[in-house]
């Protein structure tokens, strides 16, 4: 089991109103599976992914990452897991605008202290895999949105993580580009046996998964496999 949550809850308090953005979620994700969480806007998808991605802290309940209770980890250990064992794909790509395509992919490798030569070699491999070898020295604003998301996928895969967290990766893309991105994720991750947890509000996208969940008002329900 790569990820397991136990009564995971995240409550926001806005004045007097209390929002359970994630409400007693129990989720188990097997190694090398492709899991999707379908839910409308505001249902708690981002909050849940942030909790699993060690970006946010739960109000109550637990996250286990590879059987390790992450609430016991220091900030440094959490960062290390994010850097080495997880890859993030954001809805809005979050590429660094001042860096070129290849530099964006080299970034997590540099942060992991991989040697410069190896960084470059690996970045080019990854960018070739996402079919962007012709855009190596472009900056994000010179790319189409589909291309930006492909750079982001290459970046997420850079340190060969065991878990990819993709929060509505097709949210900004048209249907066709979106399905290309999903296909790319499926192809790349299945080959390497990388686990993927992907959220979407699009039923079609959710259907590619081995395991499907549905979330509404912070409540997670198992759909099918």
């Amino acid at each position, binding site marked *: 089991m790569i990820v397991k949550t136990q009564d995971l809850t995240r409550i926001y308090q806005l004045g007097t109103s209390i929002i359970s953005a994630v409400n007693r979620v129990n989720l188990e994700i097997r190694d090398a599976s492709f899991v999707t969480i379908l839910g409308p806007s505001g249902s708690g998808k981002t909050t849940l992914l942030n909790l699993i991605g060690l970006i946010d802290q739960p109000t109550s309940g637990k996250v286990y990452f590879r059987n390790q209770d992450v609430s016991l980890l220091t900030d440094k250990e959490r*960062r290390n897991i994010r850097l080495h064992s997880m890859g993030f794909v*954001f809805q809005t790509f*979050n590429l*660094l605008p001042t860096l070129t395509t290849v530099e964006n992919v080299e*970034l997590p490798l540099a*942060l992991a202290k991989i040697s410069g030569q190896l960084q470059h070699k690996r970045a080019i491999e990854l960018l070739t895999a996402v079919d962007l070898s012709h855009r190596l020295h472009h900056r994000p604003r010179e790319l189409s949105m589909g291309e930006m998301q492909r750079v982001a996928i290459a*970046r997420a895969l850079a340190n060969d993580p065991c878990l990819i967290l993709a929060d509505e990766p097709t949210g900004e893309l048209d249907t066709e580009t979106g399905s290309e991105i999903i296909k790319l994720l499926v192809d790349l991750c299945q080959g390497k046996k990388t686990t993927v947890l992907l959220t979407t509000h699009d039923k079609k996208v959710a259907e590619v998964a081995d395991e499907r969940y549905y979330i509404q008002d912070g409540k997670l329900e198992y759909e099918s496999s």
Partner: protein
Amino acid sequence: MFFREEIVVVAEGSWVVQAFPVIGENLPISTLEKVNQVEGVKTVVPMVVRFGYQVEAVIQLVPTNVSIGIPFGNLSVLIGQTPLKPGGTWPVVAQEEVVVGPSLALEWNFDAGSKIKVSSKHAYMNLTVSGILDTRSALLSRSIILPLRLAQQLSYGHTMFVNMIIAEPEYIDQQELIANRIEQEIPGLKALSINERNQIVEPLLSDIETWNLGLSSVLYLLSMILVIMVSTMNISERRRDFATLDAIGAPKSTIFRIVMIETALIGLLGGVLGVLLGSIAAVLIASIYTSIPLSLFFADLLAFISPFFLTKIITSTVVISSIAGILSAITALRINLPETLRAEY
């Protein structure tokens, strides 16, 4: 300063600035002989000084122009060893010639030999510029120096008055004594030794100092504001990038270093820009204030903004940029990560 060892004699109640009467009564020419007869006075030189101010401008320390009438035989009392710019000659009274200061010459495009017209309500004269003074004195630089007779004609329409007399004491250490003696023996006169003049000028000098302080503050403030503006702008613009770095697991120390270096560099850039803009602003203000043409200031910018001051400003720019860098690095580490990632840009 003018007339170190000489006593400046003016009418009682005159207002004297930089050793020259700015406002006040005139003296009948007979006063000259009276002062000359006071015991201990070696020589006397009569002068007529008129300050021209631009009416629209604020109070000016340096007037738009000054006309000074003096017997050319005594010119050295006024200008000391000041040379003329190449090509000029010292005037010959009979030919109605004048010398002018470099700032005026530049402004009006005068050369040695230029014909100029000078007029007042009493007289209208065609004069010839025989030479341009080579001086850095702000006052002389704005001066037209005429033969006394012409200045009197312009000022009064006749030659029966002057408005100041320079009295040279026989012994320097008797300045105070003789000044007092002149005031006692001749009613209606004010005789100012160098000390007394300094006392009058002091508040004015401190005014200049305040003004200088103001100018440097403008420069200073502008560059500091720019440093801070540029760095905070960069920080808020790049919040999301820092959050991204944070999310993908960059170590805190790396984020700190990136933000700090980036902010400091950008701050430095802002500082350099600020020094440039600030210098221009300061010079503009000073030029408007003193009515000295801009070109004169720019020709000699470094004399106006001292290297010492520049060094000071650049040092503080570096210091402030570094502080801004460290502060923004600390802020960057304290962001609420999920919130910042969520924010729309």
